[in-house]
Each structure stands twice: as structure tokens, then as C-alpha cells.
């Protein structure tokens, strides 16, 4: 099962340039047309399941607007 990830996009920095959207290998990003940032941009967001936390969106973002998280799954030895 692929890792499960998620991102946060900062309204302060995002300029709606769409570079993250076209780079996301899972194609789970889009501009949120229902919202505007204080500067008047439609910010990027995740619109569906499937983010793996690969951070490619953050690598291409010119405004360092994206924080990336990934759920860490650890196999715990079963109790004897």
C-alpha cells in the first residue's frame, strides 16, 4: 500500500501559479476556486485521496508555500 500523505498550503505565500498541480505525480491537486487568499489568488489544495507525501509539489513551489506530511506506518511485533 502506498504511503498516505497530506499537505498544507499557506495562504500567505501561495500565488496560484499551478506549478505544483502539474508536477504532482498522483494528480490530486487543483486550485481551490471557492476561495481567495488575502492577496486575491485561488490557492492550491488537494481535492481527492491519493497523496503519498512525496513532496514533489514542495520541490517545485517557487514560494515555499507547501508543508508536506506523511503517515509513518511501523510494524509492531505481535505480543507473544
Amino acid at each position, binding site marked *: 500500500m502506498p504511503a498516505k500523505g497530506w499537505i498544507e498550503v*499557506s495562504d*500567505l505565500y501561495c500565488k496560484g501559479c499551478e506549478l505544483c498541480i502539474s508536477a504532482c505525480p498522483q494528480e490530486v491537486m487543483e486550485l481551490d476556486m471557492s476561495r481567495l487568499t488575502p*492577496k486575491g489568488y485561488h490557492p492550491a489544495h488537494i481535492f481527492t485521496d491519493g497523496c503519498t507525501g512525496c513532496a514533489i509539489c*514542495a*520541490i*517545485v513551489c517557487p514560494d515555499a*508555500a507547501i508543508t508536506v506530511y506523511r503517515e509513518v506506518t511501523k510494524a509492531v511485533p*505481535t505480543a507473544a
Partner: protein
Amino acid sequence: MVTTAPNNLVYERPEGFTDTPTHYCPGCTHGVAHRLVAEVLEEMGVLDKTIGVAPVGCAVFAYNYFETDFVEAPHGRAPAMATGIKRVMPERVVFTYQGDGDLASIGMGEIVHAAARGENITVIFINNANYGMTGGQMAPTTLPGMKTTSSPNGRDVETQGYPIRVSEMLSTLDGAGYVVRRSLHDPKNIRLAKKAIRIAFETQIRGLGFSLVELLSTCPVNWNMKPVDALKFVEEKMVPYFPLGDYKLSAGAAQIKI
């Protein structure tokens, strides 16, 4: 049994950045270049001893964005200012951040002589094939046939000359320790660019002479393109004319492992 530990951070805005949003146009890869420099300086633990030298050009406000000391140079004179700062304070990490108009037009003399003298400074050179700040005029790096506001019919090499390949040219100088060209048009190339920036700063810290990383970069607004299309333009039009590669890798720089 599988347990999950949520909230595991993979990436966050580098500590090398201030909280100030940049003034760059949406999708302009000046921002990517800034981010890579901030990440590298943070990872090297040298933020508090670094002095940046900002240019005239779109990066004129670079001093607002980095958690380092900064000075602002007159147009094209960043290598001369960096020379003075580094000679007086050799323990500091000193870098210039310059566009192609700043570095290769008005500042061509400064950069050539700084490299020839082997000044122990690092130069981040943004090649976006035009003068972004002043409205997209032709730069020494404008491609043949490329339309700009001062070459509205496309750059005619018969009357306006040929583009200058700065990295190749500087690589002929013995004072240059590390001179390479990278590009910012996709994730793989951005990673390679970051590695080169790291090696350039390591070159300086080891006292191995002049280091420069040329970065092929976009200017979506003056190129009249969407940011995504501007990345394609870099890949399809700029990379063939400005090939990516290591143009000067001195024996010392070649030994840097990161």
C-alpha cells in the same frame, strides 16, 4: 499489527527564509532558486555567518527574504562588493545573486575579473534570457530569434550579436574552481541544482576559489507564457542552447562529497 504515527513532517519552508512573501510574479523560478539557497545554507549551518550581495534586477529585494546578512550592490557590481567583503572577513560565507542583465551586460567586467582573480566567493547566476525587472528587454542571453520588448521581431544575430554562454566562458579562467550550469524546469533538475549550489558553497568554505552556478530560470510574465509553459520553454529551447553540465571542476572541487 500496524500502528500509525501521524504528523510526520516531510518538508517545510526552510529556516533560511524570513516570513516575508516574495514580490516575484506567480510561478517565477527566481523563487525556486531562492529556496534552494536558503535550504543549502540552513543544511550547512552557516546562516548566521553568511553575507549575501543582492543585484539590481528582479532580485533587488533578495535581502528581505533570507535569514542572513545582506548588502545591496550597484547594478552589476555585486562581485566587486563580494570581493571586498570576503577579503576583509574571510571567515564569512559570501555570495552574490545576479541576473543575466546584471551579470552579463553591465556587470560583465566585474564577473570576469572576479573569476580571473579566483576570488573565494560564490555566485548564483539566474539566466532567464531577458531583463525581467525593466519589462523584458533583450539580454546577452536572449536566444536567437527570441522576441523581447527591445527585439520585437526576434533577436537578429546579424545586428544584435549572439547569446553569451557565461559558464563556458568563465570556465577558461584559472581562478575558477567550480563553474556549472543547471536548470530549474522540473523536480529532477531542481534537485541537481540544489546539489550544485551545495558544492559551490563547499568550494568557497574549502578556499578552492571562485564558484558559480548558472541556473536556467523562467520569466513567465515577460515571456508571455503561463508558468507551466515557461518551464517547457526552458526545457525545449533554453537547454539546447545552454547545455547543462560541469564546465569547471577543479581537482579540489571534484573531491567534495556531499
